[in-house]
């Protein structure tokens, strides 16, 4: 059966792609952010995952308000990036893992998760930037994107996203394959782009949330979506991807590394790497 090596979570602020394109990783503004990934690169060299299942949220590249799935999963041979309209460079396609996609679809629908399945799926910065952060050179993994709606309310609850993650984890561990899988969750942490409260950041909550993912992973599921927006901002609610990731990894974990840095653009940037011990 397949195994899960661990979980990776990171912010996906578009400006990161600009910094990578300019080679600005060593500049004072960016260095504390990019340096946080160095221990994770070493860890990935050791555990060598073959496949990445990526929880992310689309920002109006693949999905529009005409059809807005709550949970969508890719089932394609490859996933292309495309112009998002505001000028970050597009990147080459990512390889899919369709046999795992269809195994996940079968397993999850059997367990009452009603997924939208996508044989064509453009992936936006929320998918492409984390891949580049974790693998700055060549991407050695095949991928399965799982998109969670954070654009149009009502959003799925924290509890539901955690449960989705748990089911994804169980499905991966039941996959007839010898592949090593890493689960990735992108977005957050606290930030708000819109409204008079733009620029809102909640350091205390973010740090508590990051701690909770190690030893008390269900902690944040006590909150409603409305409470999470209040505590983390309209975009901070992207922590749902982190919760799904931790749900998938399941059981005890070792914190490989974590980094938290204010600000990247308008965002409190967080990153965690958790190794599965179970």
């Amino acid at each position, binding site marked *: 059966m397949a195994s899960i090596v661990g979980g990776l979570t990171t912010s996906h602020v578009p400006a990161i792609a600009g910094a990578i394109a300019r080679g600005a990783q060593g500049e004072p503004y960016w260095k504390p952010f990019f340096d946080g990934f160095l221990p994770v690169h070493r860890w990935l060299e050791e555990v060598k995952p073959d496949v990445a299942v990526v929880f992310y949220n689309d920002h109006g590249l693949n999905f529009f308000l005409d059809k807005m799935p709550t949970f969508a999963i890719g089932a394609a041979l490859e996933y292309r990036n495309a112009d998002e309209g505001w000028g970050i460079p597009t990147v080459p396609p990512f390889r899919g893992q369709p046999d795992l996609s269809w195994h996940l679809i079968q397993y999850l629908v059997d367990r009452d998760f009603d997924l939208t399945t996508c044989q064509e799926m453009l992936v936006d910065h929320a998918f492409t930037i984390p891949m580049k952060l974790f693998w700055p050179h060549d991407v050695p993994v095949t991928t399965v994107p799982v998109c969670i709606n954070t654009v149009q309310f009502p959003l799925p609850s924290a509890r539901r996203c955690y449960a989705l993650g748990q089911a994804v984890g169980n499905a991966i561990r039941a996959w007839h394959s010898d592949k090593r899988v890493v689960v990735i969750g992108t977005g957050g942490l606290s930030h708000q782009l819109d409204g008079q409260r733009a620029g809102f950041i909640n350091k*205390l909550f973010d740090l508590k949330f990051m701690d909770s993912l190690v030893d008390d992973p269900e902690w944040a599921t006590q909150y409603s979506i409305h409470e999470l927006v209040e505590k983390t901002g309209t975009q901070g609610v992207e922590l749902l991807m982190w919760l799904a990731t931790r749900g998938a990894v399941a059981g005890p974990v070792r914190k490989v590394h974590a980094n938290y840095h204010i600000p990247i653009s308008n965002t409190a940037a967080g990153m965690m790497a958790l190794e599965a011990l179970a």
Partner: protein
Amino acid sequence: MPNRSIPGTTIFDGTQAQKGYALNRMCFSFNEQANRDAFRADEEGYMARYGLQAQQAQAIRDRDVLGLLAAGGNVYYLAKFAGIVGLDVQDLGAAQTGLSKQEFKDRLLRQNEQPVRSPA
């Protein structure tokens, strides 16, 4: 019981999604360079093709970020419009908070100083 409101925050719910549909649909089209060029060449004609309401069209003309949100705009689609007119999310933040861009960036930096322990 309805949720209490969050100051300075509009939840993009079904009401907003219906109200803003034409505006957001236009902004979604800006994913493509040809559409960005067409908008630049003839803003009024482009807005008319997407059927923007008067309030939405005026907020586009005025580059009025809060007005666009009030007209049902969603920030992810509005960001594509902002890109056309050369504004990034920190320009948007400044415009919405009444600060200069430098003041807005300074305020973000100061968020580092938030206490990391709850008051006893």
